[in-house]
């Protein structure tokens, strides 16, 4: 678990240096939160997602809680979706990811609304690109990392 977090931290810096300016980068922390959600029970997975979001907030020198709420929402949505879908099958994974991705952004908008923040001008294309860049990484992580049976 911890090694994955360390690896994600290094990889996020690495991708940040290589990724083209102005293009939405893949959300590695979302991938990590969903990996945890796949292998941990909800009473551990949800706090982990919250913690990962806090780390992401600290890394971004931004508002503490924004990413935490986003990843928490994503993780919760993933648990909710995976209860109703066959685990390990591609359509199920895709749908769970889509659900979690939307929930993450819903969490962001909730915090923004809660604090009456001025929303950045995001285009739907940006969201779509972030999702499209994140999905292959999730599928790769799904494939490469072992999938322990959730208790």
């Amino acid at each position, binding site marked *: 678990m911890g090694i994955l977090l360390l690896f994600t931290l*290094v990889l996020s810096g*690495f991708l940040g240096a290589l990724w083209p300016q102005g293009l939405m980068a893949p959300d590695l922390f979302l991938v990590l939160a969903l990996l945890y959600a796949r292998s941990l029970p*909800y*009473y551990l997975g949800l706090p982990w997602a919250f913690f990962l979001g806090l780390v992401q907030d600290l890394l971004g020198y931004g508002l*503490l809680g924004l990413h935490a709420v986003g990843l928490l*929402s994503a993780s919760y949505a993933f648990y909710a979706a995976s209860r109703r879908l066959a685990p390990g099958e591609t359509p199920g994974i895709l749908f769970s990811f889509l659900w979690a991705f939307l929930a993450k952004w819903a969490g962001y908008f909730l*915090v923004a609304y809660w604090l009456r923040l001025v929303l950045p001008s995001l285009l739907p294309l940006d969201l779509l690109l972030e999702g499209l860049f994140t999905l292959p990484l999730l599928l790769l992580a799904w494939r490469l990392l072992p999938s322990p049976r959730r208790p």
Partner: protein
Amino acid sequence: MREVALRRGIFLLLLALGLAMAALTRPLAPRLALTLSPLTAPLPALGHRLGQNLRAASAILLNRQDLYGENRSLKARIAQLESENRRLRLEVERLSRALKVRASQAPGVVAVAPVVGEDLSGLYRRLILGLGERDGLRVGMPVTAPEGLVGLIVEVEERRALVRTLLDPESQVGVRPEKAPGRGVARGVPPDHLVAEFPPTVQVAPGDLLLTGAPLGLFPDGIPVGRVERLERVQGGLKLRAWVKPLVELSLLEEVIVLRPL
């Protein structure tokens, strides 16, 4: 059912915590993150540096590829210029030869013609030129080289001409010694000699240079023909026969100069 409620409860609890945290730490947002950054920043910074190095390395590689491309195109350009230089040098040499002939062997150059073929039968010594009637060549035009006389054009086609060289057995060239009066006729003796016959009174010795003489009317006067190698008296001493080595090495000729006929 209970599990769902519990999960929902945890979610709502954490959500409330997140919202509260966001609200409470909002005034401290950048400062707090900066204070805690020594805990979180080193690893992303390490990754960032790795990425930057990788990016710089790839940029260097791409630049080197540009250099390779530029180097290739410059080499190609140099090769092209060298080839052009060689061509121009040959052209200058050719024109220099023509000028030399024009200066020394008037009455004028008609053309500088490439030698494209040679009769190597041993019986005749003839050359084929790469120019013909279309280029102004005519039967009877003398053919020379900077070293000396080559022969006479005997056949002309549209784009080719046949030269009977001075070594051809059918060739007859009026000659005279360079430093003494007297006339003779030189005939070709293949493969590489001429035989010139003079009256016995003509003062000629081995090593003398023979030039063309005007009497036979085919060649301009004064073109070098060859050097006398040995002499013998024939017909009971009534004639002086000179074995002459021509100055022109026919097998090495690449170009010849065609002169206007007399």
